[in-house]
């Protein structure tokens, strides 16, 4: 029987623990930024289609930025 080979432990980064906020899934920071971007685009497109005739798009953009920030912070 030969001696077991000693191996150097790999210095791998530990994954950050997933968190559960108000979103119905566990998320990490990347997930929340991704969802915020998706929501930002969706709100702006729907605003242009249905609301821009009466309310300027800037309002929708500001709202979607606020919502995006909320998702990133508390999602």
């Amino acid at each position: 029987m030969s001696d077991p080979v000693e191996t150097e432990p790999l210095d791998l980064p530990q994954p950050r623990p997933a968190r559960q906020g108000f979103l119905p899934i566990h998320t990490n920071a990347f997930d929340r930024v991704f969802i915020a971007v998706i929501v930002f685009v969706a709100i702006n497109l729907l605003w242009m289609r249905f609301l821009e005739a009466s309310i300027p798009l800037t309002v929708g953009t500001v709202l979607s930025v606020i919502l995006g920030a909320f998702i990133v912070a508390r999602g």
Partner: protein
Amino acid sequence: MRSSSVGWLFLTPTFFVLFVFGVVPFLYVLVIGFTQWNSFAADPTMHFVWAENFRRLVFDEPFLRSLWLTLKFAVFAVVGEVVLGYFLAQFFMRDFPGKGFFRTLHTLPLVVAPIAVGATWRLLTVPGLGPLPYYLDRWFGYEFNIGRYPSQAFAATVVMDIWHWTPLVTLTLLAALSAMPKEPFEQAQIDGANRFQMFWHITLPLLKPAILATVFIRLMDALRTVDEVWMLTGGGPASATRYIGLYIWRVVFPKTDYGYGSAMSLLTLYLTVVMCWLLYAALVARRDLRRPE
């Protein structure tokens, strides 16, 4: 620390290729999507127009109709491929004479180029020449003409896609079925479970990752299908099979409206990502939610 550095060194060529052929073209399309640019127009310069292309997009009825058609096509094609692929995979799990031969034969559509698949199906379905309209008329008195009837043209594109891509699903599910442990099935049999219960409570959960991966790949492919459909129907009759890929092609190449075409491409990419993410969140991420910490 040294291992990490060596790892990053080995990954550098991959990142470089990904950056040059993936990230840079995406950023280029992203920038063009916010411009008005037609290099063959009277004014060939590029003008930054903010979200004007997207504003035009959400009111473009033919584009929205194409988008809806593409979603319908993708759902019919992917569901058909997964269901048929599962049954074929189960069939190829059994032993029968000539199994290897038939398994190879059934994967042949995969190696055919999409444009050749479209040409083949055109020869099969063109009225007055193809065997399909001829025999449908002779045996059932059914008039099959994909150049005249929109629903038949749509169905023909779906069937063609299923014919072309089901073998991929079969191979993926066959690999997943082959790798399944036998013990849960033996225990279920001892407990008196019937075939449906075994399928629902054992086979399907164990197959879920493979099915999900296959659905992702096929969904992305189906949403950007162009060449097969272009060859078979050319987007017609009228606009019955003018899927989003064909629509973008018409805007970008014959009309040379690069800004608007880029905006369409970006929206299509956005919808593809959203659909895949929703599917992932519904089938995988929610399961994690139920799991205790």
